[in-house]
């Protein structure tokens, strides 16, 4: 399986043999192109070009816009730090959307990982249809971010939607408006996020298969039951994968957009207003693109700090093969 490569720790691979292969040269140009340095530059040129054009330039521009009053359709006007001052002192929606986003990311990510791990453990057993199930459970993570599913979700949680009908089958008859209630609305989005557990599940599955079976054999000889095998062997050896998933998935959580934009648009009363949606509205609905850019940079900084802190905690709980 190709995915296994992503979780193998480095150090196991033998160095590739020195390139002893000689090309028959057909001319100067070919010989020039075949020089290792030149080939390297040529081959990476498309990436470098794209990186400069579509990443570095826009990045620099957006940093500049954070210091301007820019309404998109006109020319930006330099205003110094006003955008940042406004954000931290005069904008309650900045704090509100930040709070909502952190709540969403910090709740939905662990839930999703636990769910993914449970399903991965179930699917670990090899049977004829486990392949089908793996594919089936992966599906939501491809579909989950899509507009169609978001619209479906909105219908499901409507007062006369499928969820309330299903509750009716169990004798709970209700017209509860899941999306209209200030405390329940965010949870519909969290459930949607947890449902997209597929990609974390696959990564867990791959690294579960990497755990040497000798360890389990030895443990069962020593009389350890399945439960303590899980806690003492499986989980510790999975920590690098958990760490990887935690970092990637919570970044995804901070940057969540579609769910809020399509399903709730921040309603009710901004209790589901994601930071990215607020940024989008400021930039494109209210034409405050400079302010929007400043919001984006603050989020970048916060994600940077968050990831940095996670990496600092790494040595306390993540298993390191080389240590």
């Amino acid at each position: 399986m190709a995915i296994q490569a992503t979780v193998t720790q480095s150090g196991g691979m033998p160095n590739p043999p020195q390139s002893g292969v000689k090309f028959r040269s057909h001319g100067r140009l070919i010989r020039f192109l075949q020089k290792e340095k030149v080939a390297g530059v040529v081959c990476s040129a498309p990436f470098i070009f794209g990186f400069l054009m579509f990443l570095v330039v826009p990045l620099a521009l957006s940093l500049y816009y954070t210091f301007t009053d820019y309404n998109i359709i006109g020319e930006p006007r330099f205003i110094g730090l006003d955008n940042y001052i406004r954000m931290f002192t005069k904008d309650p929606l900045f704090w509100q959307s930040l709070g909502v986003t952190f709540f969403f990311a910090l709740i939905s990510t662990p839930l999703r990982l636990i769910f993914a791990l449970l399903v991965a453990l179930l699917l670990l057993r090899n049977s004829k249809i486990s392949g089908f199930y793996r594919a089936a459970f992966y599906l939501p993570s491809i579909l989950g971010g899509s507009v169609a599913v978001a619209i479906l979700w909105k219908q499901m949680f409507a007062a006369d939607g499928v969820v309330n009908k299903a509750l009716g089958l169990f004798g709970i008859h209700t017209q509860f408006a899941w999306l209209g209630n200030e405390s329940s609305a965010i949870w519909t989005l969290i459930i949607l996020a947890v449902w997209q557990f597929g990609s974390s599940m696959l990564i867990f599955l791959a690294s579960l298969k990497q755990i040497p079976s000798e360890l389990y054999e030895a443990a069962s000889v020593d009389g350890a039951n399945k439960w303590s095998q899980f806690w003492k062997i499986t989980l510790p050896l999975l920590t690098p994968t958990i760490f990887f998933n935690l970092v990637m998935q919570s970044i995804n959580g901070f940057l969540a957009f579609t769910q809020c934009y399509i399903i709730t648009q921040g309603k009710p009363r901004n209790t589901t207003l994601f930071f990215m949606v607020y940024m989008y509205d400021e930039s494109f609905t209210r034409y405050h693109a400079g302010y929007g850019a400043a919001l984006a940079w603050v989020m970048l900084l916060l994600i940077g700090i968050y990831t940095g802190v996670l990496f600092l905690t790494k040595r306390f709980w993540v298993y390191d093969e080389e240590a």
Partner: protein
Amino acid sequence: MKNTRKLLAIATIGATLISMAACGGGSKGGDSSADSGELSVAWWGNQDRNARQAKVNKAFEEANKGVKVKGSFFEWNDYWKKLSTQVAGKQMPDVVAMDYSYLQQYVENGQLQALDDYISDGTIKTKGIDKNVLNSGKMNGKTYALSLGSSSPALIYNKKVLDQAGLTMPKSMTLDEFEKMSKTIYEKTGYKTNFRYYEASELLEYVLRGEGKTLFKSKKLGVDAADLKPYFKVYQDGIDQGWHLGPDVFTEIQTGSVEQDPLVYGNDPGRRSWVSMKFTSQLTALQKVNKDADLELAPWPSSNLKKANYVKPGMFFSISKSCKNPKLAAKYIDFYTNNEKAVKAMLTDRGLPIASESLKAITPMLSPEEKKVITFMNDVVIPQSSAINPPSPASAATVNTQTLPQIEEALLYRKINAEGAAKQFEDEANSSLSR
């Protein structure tokens, strides 16, 4: 091994060249598009309008051989987002639909071309168009936009519900009378009311006009909390007495969309409204969504109909600054306004056609809804109305999309009362307007 590596290198170089060529090709295509007679047109609308506009585009292509019209359409909210990003990317469509509330902003930032040359050389024929209508697209002495039709604010109501409640619609009503009517309807039929929840400030502006006040001055509000309170009081009374739709209903629909307006969308009367505060141009589209509803028009509530009511120079078409072939674009606008085929395709979708000949041409083929609109405009609005407010300042966008909807939301969730709402609106709106 040898061959694979060689092959890989060649493939990579090939891919690079192709992708670069593709980039080059793309931009070249963009440049030549105007010369080869391609015209991009953008507008906002609903399903009904899009189908009609497509017919106009087709007729224009047939009348001008070699011209290709590329139409694109969005819903109101998305349209302005898309347009602004297109401006930033220097990819603005050649002909763009403009609204009164955005015109000033786009002209001030130099994104539109003046139409005067094309009007004086006869590309855009203005024979039979009212001077006032022409002037509505003028800014700083130049014409930047041509109105596509006029409309007016209209309280669109479901007559079936009123009949069921044993009520008739009066010629005009005050806010108090409106509240009383909503309450009776709720008690007798179960149908609730949607005042103008989570939409822009036109109704608030209208109510204030009735009092002789102006909502937006250039850098601040023209009113204070005491003036604003009656408007917010309607929401408070409505939710307290149970006749206004709960805020949860609006979390399940696309607010502002015609297709999901509670007037025509939904089954349960407790989640439907008997009324929708819209504009005359939306009657046909609303009726199409729900054939069962019997929709009629009346003026919005206010304390003085003549002062409050106005004729709105519907939408406009403008030519963007980046348009490479403005002559063709002007031709298109003229075609839309004066060509019989085009006018017959659009009918009154964007309001009554502005050219008198065009209006004459379509009169025999109008649907009952469109006839209702014409009668309403001629008999109710035009005799009893006054001049429209000047276009609102650009910063009013924050008030319209954020301040007002969110205060209305807080009211319906009973987080504040009308008094608090009025005070909060005054503070927040003034602060956004001064920004």
